[in-house]
C-alpha cells in the first residue's frame, strides 16, 4: 500500500472514525457519505455526521491463520475475527495476545492500537486497530 493511500485512512485506522445517519441512527464503518437505508428519500445526503466507534464489541466469527500474510510471519498462528461493534458495524481484525484455543464467539473485545505492517526495513510503519479480549474474558471460559 502506498504511503499516501494509507495516510488518507489514518482517521479510520487510528481512531475508528465512522459516520452516523441522522435519520435512522445507523452507524457506518468505514464512514459513508449517504445512508443506504435512507437513500431512497435522499434525506441523509450531506447530513451524515462524523462519529467515533467506542472500540467495544464482541467476536462474531473467527478463524486461526497458519499461513501468514506478508509481514505477519512472526505472529503465526494468529486469530482473525469478524467483530460486531457495539454501535453496529462489523469489522475484520486480528485478535492479539490470545491463545487460539481460548477464543470463541460472543467474547467481549476492545480495540487496541498496534503495528499493522512495516514496508521492509527502511519503509514507513503502518499503525491501526486490532482487538484484544476484554480484561479477564479468556479466564471466564
Amino acid at each position: 500500500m502506498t504511503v499516501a493511500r494509507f495516510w488518507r485512512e489514518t482517521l479510520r485506522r487510528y481512531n475508528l472514525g465512522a459516520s452516523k445517519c441522522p435519520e435512522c441512527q445507523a452507524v457506518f464503518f468505514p464512514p459513508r457519505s449517504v445512508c443506504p437505508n435512507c437513500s431512497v428519500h435522499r434525506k441523509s445526503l450531506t447530513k451524515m455526521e462524523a462519529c467515533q466507534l467506542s472500540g467495544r464489541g464482541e467476536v462474531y466469527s473467527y478463524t486461526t491463520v497458519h499461513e501468514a500474510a506478508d509481514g505477519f510471519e512472526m505472529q503465526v498462528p494468529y486469530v482473525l475475527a469478524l467483530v460486531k461493534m457495539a454501535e453496529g458495524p462489523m469489522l475484520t481484525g486480528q485478535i492479539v495476545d490470545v491463545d487460539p484455543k481460548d477464543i470463541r464467539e460472543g467474547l467481549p473485545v476492545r480495540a487496541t492500537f498496534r503495528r499493522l505492517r512495516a514496508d521492509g526495513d527502511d519503509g514507513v510503519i503502518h499503525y491501526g486497530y486490532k482487538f484484544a479480549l476484554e480484561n479477564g474474558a479468556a479466564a471466564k471460559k
Partner: protein
Amino acid sequence: MKAEGVGIVSYGTYVPRYRITPDEIGRVWGVDGVAMGKNLNIHSKSVPSPDEDTITISTEALRVAMTRGGIDPRDIGAVYVGSESHPYAVKPTATIVAQAIGATPNLTAADFEFACKAGTAAIQVCMGLVASGMIKYGVAIGSDTSQGAPGDALEYSASAGGGAFILGKDPIIAKINATQSYTTDTPDFWRREGQRYPSHGGRFTGEPAYFRHVTECGKGIMASEGTTPADYQHVVFHQPNGKFPQRAGKLLGFNEDQMRYGMVTPWIGNTYSGAALIGLANVLDHAKPTERILVVGYGSGAGSDAFDLTVTDNITNFDRQTGTPVQQDLDHGMTINYSIYAKFRGKIRLSGE
C-alpha cells in the same frame, strides 16, 4: 524548582501481556537463571508482541489516561514522548501518539531522549508550560521496548512498558511540590547510532552512575524542601533491576514499607523510560489523600530527576480502574518460552531481512 499549582491531572500505563522468567533465559545460555534472577531481584519480565513498540505502548497508556481523566483531546497543548527505543530514527513518535488520541493539529509535540529518564524530563517541561499558562494540559510519556543482546546480562531485565501522565492545574489528583535534577557527563551505558543493542561500562554502571546520581538528587530535593524520609509515605526510584532501588532506598534512609508500591521491576522487568513512571502509577493506584510521594528517576549518561508530590482529595473519586491497574500487570501475564521470545523480539531474523 517550583511550578506553582501544577500537578497530575490523570495517568495511565500499559505493559505488554507476555512474560519470560530468568530461569528460562538462563536455560538457553547454560547460566543458572534462578541465581541470576535472585541476584537481580527479578522474577519475570514483560515481553512485547511483534506488533508492539514504543508508539503502540505510549498510545495505549495515554488513551487510558485520557479516559480516566475525562480529558477533551483539544485541551492537550503538548505531547512529549521520552524513550530510547523510538521506532523511527527520524519521524517523531509523538505525532503518531497525538494523532491517535485525536489531539492534532493544534498542539506542540516532540520526542525526548535521555536513556531511562526521558519521561521524567518530559514531565518537567510540561510543568513549565502549564505553570506559565502557555498550555492547559501537557502530556509526558515514558515508554520503551528495550533489548539486551542475546546472552548479555541485560537480557534478564530489559523489558517493555510505559506510563503516560497528564499535567495541568485543575483538577489535580497529586500536586507537584517541587522538582530537582542532578546531571553529569558519565559514560555508564550507551548505544551508538545504527547499533542494534546497547553497550555498558560493566561495574561502572553502579556506584559513580546510578547510586551517586539517585542519592545526590534525592538528598538535594529533601534539603531544599526541608523534609526527611519520614515525611514520605511512598518513594519510587528508577529500577533497572529489583536490587538497585532497594539499596538506593536504604542509602537514603527509606524502609521497605515506603518502597512497597513503587517497586514494579521484580515482576515486569526494567521498562527503562517507563520504570519510574509505572512505579509512580502503582503508588497512585494505592494512594490516599494527603500522602506524600518522593520520585527519583535516573537516566544513564547520566542524570536524575526528582519530584516531591502530595496526593489531593480528588484521588478518592478518580477512576483508577479503566485500563489495567498496575497491580494486575504485576500479578498476571502469559508466560512464554525462549523460542517464542526470540521469535517475538526479532532475535531470529528471516532471510532477506
